């Protein structure tokens, strides 16, 4: 990067500034900056998944049919109690091995399987390697499943908060059950759900720091690597333990993300509270 700067500018900046410019734009640092998109993508897609799982979970849980209600209740109550780290490790691994198992039953010959008895995968052909983005997708689904349970709880509560009369009026005018849900119940539900959903969103942002568990070189892992005492064979100790500096940058980054989220949620709340006479809803 430093090579791109014209010589006179370098001379004017002086050796110290050019050194630091060079240091912060070296390949590892560029990778560090670029890895922010993993975090942001995981948060956004994870939240989208969580919302979908939340809506489905709430729909199941509040269903009149016991065959639907039970799975919903099990999902909401069990998954909320599972540590997110555990699920983050469990789900992608289980998914990967399930895929490999299915593939093994198709591609592995009995001879190849017999040769590798007791090993996984049953034959080398059945081995599946996920790319970083595939792992990212798995991470988003894992986040979605875990935090979807929280979202389902929030949404189910919000659905119950919509005044009965609003739904009754819709039924009285001949709207079908589906129309009542989509045209009255869901639009009015958001204002009650948003405070709870903003909590879930914050939890999802924080949970993105677990991405490195899935071999994704995210900001947390790279900060750890870049900040660690750095030796090189030719130059000896390049720098000592600078992790505190890199962690501080991460702290500021997450605070910034929180600040932006708060603004977005305030705007969403304003939008959802149009016409809804709820005290303190519009800030």
């Amino acid at each position, binding site marked *: 990067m430093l090579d791109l700067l014209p010589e006179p500018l370098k001379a004017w900046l002086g050796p110290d500034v050019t050194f630091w410019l060079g240091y912060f734009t070296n390949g590892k640092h560029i990778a560090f900056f670029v890895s922010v998109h993993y975090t942001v993508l995981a948060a956004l897609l994870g939240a989208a998944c969580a919302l979908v799982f939340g809506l489905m979970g709430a729909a199941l849980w509040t269903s009149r049919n016991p065959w639907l209600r039970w799975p919903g209740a099990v999902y909401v109550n069990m998954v909320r109690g599972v540590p997110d780290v555990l699920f983050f490790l469990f789900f992608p691994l289980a998914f990967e091995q399930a895929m490999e198992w299915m593939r093994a039953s198709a591609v592995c010959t009995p001879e190849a399987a017999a040769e590798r008895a007791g090993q996984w995968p049953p034959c080398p052909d059945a081995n599946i390697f996920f790319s970083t983005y595939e792992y990212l997708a798995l991470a988003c689904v894992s986040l979605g499943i875990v935090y979807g349970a929280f979202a389902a709880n929030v949404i189910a509560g919000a659905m119950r908060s919509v005044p009965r009369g609003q739904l009754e*009026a819709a039924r*009285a005018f*001949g*709207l079908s059950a589906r129309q009542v849900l989509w045209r009255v119940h869901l639009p*009015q539900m958001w204002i009650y759900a948003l405070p709870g959903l903003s909590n879930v969103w914050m939890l999802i942002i924080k949970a993105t720091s677990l991405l490195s568990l899935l071999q994704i070189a995210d900001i947390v892992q790279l900060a750890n690597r870049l900040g660690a005492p750095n030796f090189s064979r030719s130059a000896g100790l390049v720098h000592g333990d600078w992790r505190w500096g890199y962690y501080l940058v991460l702290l500021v980054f997450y605070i910034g993300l929180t600040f932006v989220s708060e603004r977005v949620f305030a705007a969403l709340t304003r939008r959802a509270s149009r016409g809804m006479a709820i005290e303190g809803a519009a800030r």
Partner: protein
Amino acid sequence: MRSRLKGTIQPTSRETRHAVASYPSARKAQQDHDNFDTNSPGLWAKPLAKPVCARFLHCMNKRATVVEITDLHKSYAQLEVLKGINLSAAVGEVVTLIGSSGSGKSTLLRCINMLEVPERGSVRIAGEEIRLVGNAHGRRPADEGQIRRIRSELGMVFQQFNLWSHLSILDNVMEAPLVVQKRNRAEVREEAMAMLGKVGIADKADRYPSQLSGGQQQRAAIARALCINPKVMLFDEPTSALDPELEQEVVQVIQLLAEEGRTMVLVTHDMNLARTISSKVVFLHKGLIEEDGTSDEVFGATKSARLRQFLAAAGH
């Protein structure tokens, strides 16, 4: 489109007639009202989008029955609210249900459009029986499509207004005609504005319900019920949540509708309203019809001691 009308339309006074003339949609409504021939109650005050009656022969009957309730029973767990009610409302009739709290009058009204499903008995709307299946508390509509179709022809007005708070007043009025009746948007919009003009709040069309006074909200709710061209208007204590001042503006609208010859079933605690607009007054007591008859019969020549007691307590 902004109404030059302020307040409600009082069709009986000369001055307001003049004011009505300045608002096109309201003028149309007024003309319909003036042209309405009270000698032929089988005719409707205004042309309807759909035919009034399900069957032609039914329409030939001058006093066609729009609502017919037979042997209606309704209970909640141990509490029997309705113990066998027979009631009918003919085209153009205003049937008023009165009675003390808990007498079952609201439940009876809600049985007409199956917001409450009765355990026994039947409800016919314009000769068509609402089909129910199952027994006792498991009783439910046999055909959701039929229920929706019948509901889309019954305009209900609630005590707590129940305007959809996330929609503007105009959208509230347009919702059912667009979504349930699947009518043309431009046509519905025009009719909705006319209905809002009729109840005197055309200038509030873009507001949200929470920005309106209780009386205005209830008038908007009446416009919403009118806009589906209902065969019957169902009023569930429309003025009970309003203070006396706001009550009057709603009462005036209801009186206007009665004069138009709308078929209405009205539950009310307002004895003055019941006395002035009813073609039939029904006094319910402990889930049974204690006394019914014309307004003059019920209020002028009260037979039942309970009704006399009730009217005395209500200040009559």
